């Protein structure tokens, strides 16, 4: 599904992602863990083409998408929910959702899309006409995920979805991730909360100083307390 080969990324002279390679199979949830500043966000942004200085190969469904215009990735079924959620200020919840499909070549039916989003996240229903940025952190996260789902992606990149969110909402979100697995949606899940992430993940990677220092099944990492404590505590 997604295959990264020797990915590098730089901010100016600082070499932040240093030769990362990994594969995510269809329907698989890959957790990417590691301390703050390890380079996880930069890795996701590199996959999306948002870091200017980058190298390596990003194969999505067999095609190298590294040099493709940013927006093309979405059309191919690759969605991304950034760390800061990026709910657009000045736009209502409904308009933020509409933004998820106005760029699609096949036009979606607005009402059907909104209804589906509200079914997945019932909390959004009452708030459709409210400005998106006035929602609570957890609701904004749900809106950001709902917006990315509009295109019916085949793979979704999530950057710390549980950060700063009430535990009840985190539970709700992780229930959804489990349902995705049944639907065959592939996920890269970047998380601080190791236990949560390993609950849904098939495979786990630990990134430290821009390199992968652990790759294995989620179960392997779950049993490796030392690894968890050394590289994943905040």
């Amino acid at each position, binding site marked *: 599904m997604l295959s990264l080969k020797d990915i590098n990324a730089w901010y100016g002279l600082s070499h932040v992602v240093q030769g990362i390679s990994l594969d995510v199979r269809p329907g698989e949830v890959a957790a990417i863990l590691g301390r703050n500043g390890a380079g996880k966000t930069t890795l996701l942004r590199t996959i*999306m083409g*948002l870091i*200017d200085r980058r190298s390596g190969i990003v194969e999505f469904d067999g095609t190298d998408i590294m040099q493709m*215009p*940013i*927006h*093309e*990735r*979405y*059309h191919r079924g690759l969605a*991304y929910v*950034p760390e800061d959620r*990026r709910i*657009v*200020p*000045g*736009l209502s919840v409904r*308009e933020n959702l*509409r*933004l*998820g499909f*106005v*760029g*699609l070549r096949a036009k979606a039916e607005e009402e059907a899309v909104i209804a589906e989003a509200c079914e997945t996240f019932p909390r959004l229903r009452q708030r459709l006409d409210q400005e998106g940025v006035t929602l609570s952190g957890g609701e904004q996260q749900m809106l950001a995920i709902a*917006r*990315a789902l509009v*295109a019916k992606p085949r793979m979704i990149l999530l950057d710390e979805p549980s950060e700063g969110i009430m535990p009840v909402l985190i539970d709700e979100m992780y229930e959804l991730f489990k349902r995705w697995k049944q639907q065959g949606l592939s996920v890269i899940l970047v998380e601080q909360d190791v236990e949560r992430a390993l609950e849904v993940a098939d495979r786990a990677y630990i990134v430290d100083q821009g390199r992968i220092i652990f790759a294995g099944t989620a179960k392997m990492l779950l049993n490796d307390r030392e690894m968890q404590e050394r590289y994943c505590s905040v």
Partner: protein
Amino acid sequence: MDLLLTQLATGLALGSIYVIVGLGLSLIFGMLHVVNFAHGAFFMVGGYVGVFVFAKTGNFWFSLVAVPLVVGVIGMAVERVLIRPLYGRNIDDPLLLTFGLSYIFVEVIRITFGLEGIPFGTPRELRGAVDIGVGFIPLYRIFLVALTAAILIALWLFLEKTSYGLIVRAGARDPEIVRVLGIDISRVWLFVFGLGTGIAGLAGFLSAPIQSVNPDMGVPVLAEAFVVTVVGGMGSLVGSVVAGLLVGVVVSITSLFAPDMARVSIFILMAVVLLVRPQGLFGRKGAMG
């Protein structure tokens, strides 16, 4: 008192031109973060295109439609070829580029049409004056206000009610997420630059019956358009409308009492607004709406 009121009405008509010019400048800045120093030159080119098309066709209404289209296409070519390579660079780069471009436009017009201005009479259908209760004002000025109102309504409907307008509003706030969501924002920038310059050209043609069309007519307009966007708040469309009308009224009232002060008055207005509200009347950072 009646004199003051008719002057007020004249100010609103004059302000209409400022509103249109300022809107274009504000749209371009709000969306592309390009300070378009060639805005006055596009205004001037619009005047010439209009006079030229009118001379060929003799149809004012046709010219009115042709001008924004022709100037908008020129604007799109400029964005595509000259400005696009500068995105992501320092904000000064497109500013210097458009500054230089304005001189090129003026020279090309001088070489083609000569240094002398070309007078342009009010179109026959719009001659005469109308009694507005407190005095007579020229029909053409009423037409200007009405046309500006129509443009504003059309722009508002476009921005608020269409999908493309949604993309424009979102793109002004957060171009990155717009791209991530599958939208080719470079096409939106192209369109917005064409729209902004196209309506600047329209304003140039509309002002032809008020002043003659000449190669330097864009220079004061550029300064006035900047005053409008600064007073209204950079990137705020509502701000452009209110500030444009305000500037028009200030100029026309000042010219009643102290004609020498008319040109300076708008800069005094700008200074006062900046002292009280540095972000402008409706300014928010990176805002649009």
